[in-house]
């Protein structure tokens, strides 16, 4: 009888310890995830009142394209990433095209109305980069429909 009781106590203690471990693991995981989430969010919500420091800009290039931003590799790339993508996505650069004067106009507009800072000695390098890599390509007023994916349409 006593032996039986002792056995029961031993088993209960075992279960209790196992439960305690599970609870600790869950708490630990929750804490870990929460911390990780928050630090990720912090990154996404930095103040955009200065260029991104160069050491924070990754440099992986694939087929002549900067992997993280989609920008064309070239002299001035890191300056463009640092000054331009602190505020907005690089996609607004890659989808646009203009000559040097056109890009300069956009920069002036951003400086006058959108809190962009003075680019100082970087301005010329940035303008050269944009005018070189994102120049307008001549096209007609209603060019042919391109890149059509043909498919069979059944009634």
């Amino acid at each position: 009888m006593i032996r039986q009781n002792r056995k029961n106590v031993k088993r209960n203690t075992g279960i209790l310890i196992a439960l305690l471990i599970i609870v600790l693991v869950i708490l630990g995981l929750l804490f870990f995830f929460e911390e990780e989430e928050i630090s990720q969010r912090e990154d996404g919500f930095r103040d955009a009142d200065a260029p991104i420091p160069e050491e924070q800009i990754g440099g992986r290039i694939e087929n002549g394209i900067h992997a993280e931003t989609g920008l064309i590799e070239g002299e001035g790339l890191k300056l463009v990433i640092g000054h331009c993508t602190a505020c907005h996505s690089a996609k607004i650069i890659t989808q646009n095209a203009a000559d040097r004067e056109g890009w300069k106009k956009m920069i002036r507009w951003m400086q006058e109305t959108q809190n962009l800072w003075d680019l100082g000695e970087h301005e010329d390098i940035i303008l050269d980069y944009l005018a070189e890599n994102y120049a307008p390509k001549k096209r007609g007023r209603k060019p042919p429909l391109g890149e059509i994916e043909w498919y069979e349409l059944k009634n």
Partner: protein
Amino acid sequence: MKKQQSRQERRKFLRKAGISGFAALLGADIVFALPRGYIPIALEAKDPQSLFGKHPDMVTLNDQPWNVEAQAHLLDDKVTPDDKMFIRNNGLVPESIDVENWSLTIRGEAVNQEKTYSLKELKEKFPKHTYQLVLECGGNGRAEYFPPADGNQWTIGAVSCAEWTGIRLRDLLNEVGVKANAIYVGYHAADTHLSRDPNKEPISRGIPIEKAMEDETILAFQMNGKDIPLVHGHPLRLIASGFPASVSGKWINGLSIRDKIHDGEKMAPPSYSIPCETVEPGTSVPNEKMCVIEKMPVKSLITYPKIGAMIKEGQKLPIRGHAWTAEERISKTEYSIDFGASWKPCRTAAPKNRFAWQHFDAEIDFPKKGYYEIWVKATDNTGAAQPMLTPGWNPKGYINNSCHRIAIKVT
């Protein structure tokens, strides 16, 4: 310190938002409970499908700020569902929406007294109205202009016609009391400027007082019978169809009744403005020679079939789509299979209400095998019709209403 504060803010937001808040954010239901403080991984994602519940074929033009457009065939529904509605943002989507404490303050030099209403009061105090209303971005079609115009390169998909429910702006303004010198209503909203400067509004546009007093100009709190999705303006959005969609401000928490044209952010040229007198393509136009766009031009879209259909000789081809105008109504839609040499009529349905798009359809016989383009042209009650070429060039590439076309092969 700052980090600590923002962490506390976030916790506060999480407690307030709860699961339903996340569901609104994600555009989908979350079926299992989340531990407090846990942010779903989808919020970290950089695609509009997991973030906003958008259709996978929607095209992302920009992800900071978010700008996403539809393709023609995605807009085939008579009433645009939220997963196929384009996203246009000038700033960052608000992080936290406190529906319980949301309020709207009406102020300005042309209002009798400043007055604040809670969202609940707005919903309970005024009669509700539901309309199908077209929203089209002023820059829809910008990608077609040459020389290129800067900005998001919208092709044809920055347009929608959802069903919006809310109260008439007129009813609200009449209760608040507007002075005789009121000429413009500007909006203020809860979004954040890209620079994160808290003193800067990303966009604060507006409408002339006559537009504010129209039946279909509403302060909406529902889209397609449900709370407006976060990215489309939850919990309160101004809808003024027929004008560039930028006047239909999202996340509205203030209105200014002005005795002059509202001078908020993105009201001044060159934003949403075109040269007062037409110019040669590529001309540099000074701001004082630019005029703010009001009415959007007549336009149409072929939503079926998807471009690239191949059919057998002798097979009839059904086509359909929508046409819309800022005027009274679309009076006719026509199609051409010979590059505009000849036009044949489509059937055109009556609009559900003013500013709803009207559905057209036709069945086409092709004379012989070959490559064809189907072009559609809409004409409205004023006699205005769509051009086949891009219309007058303007520096920012607005109001391109040239005909839509799709390619077909008969084999």
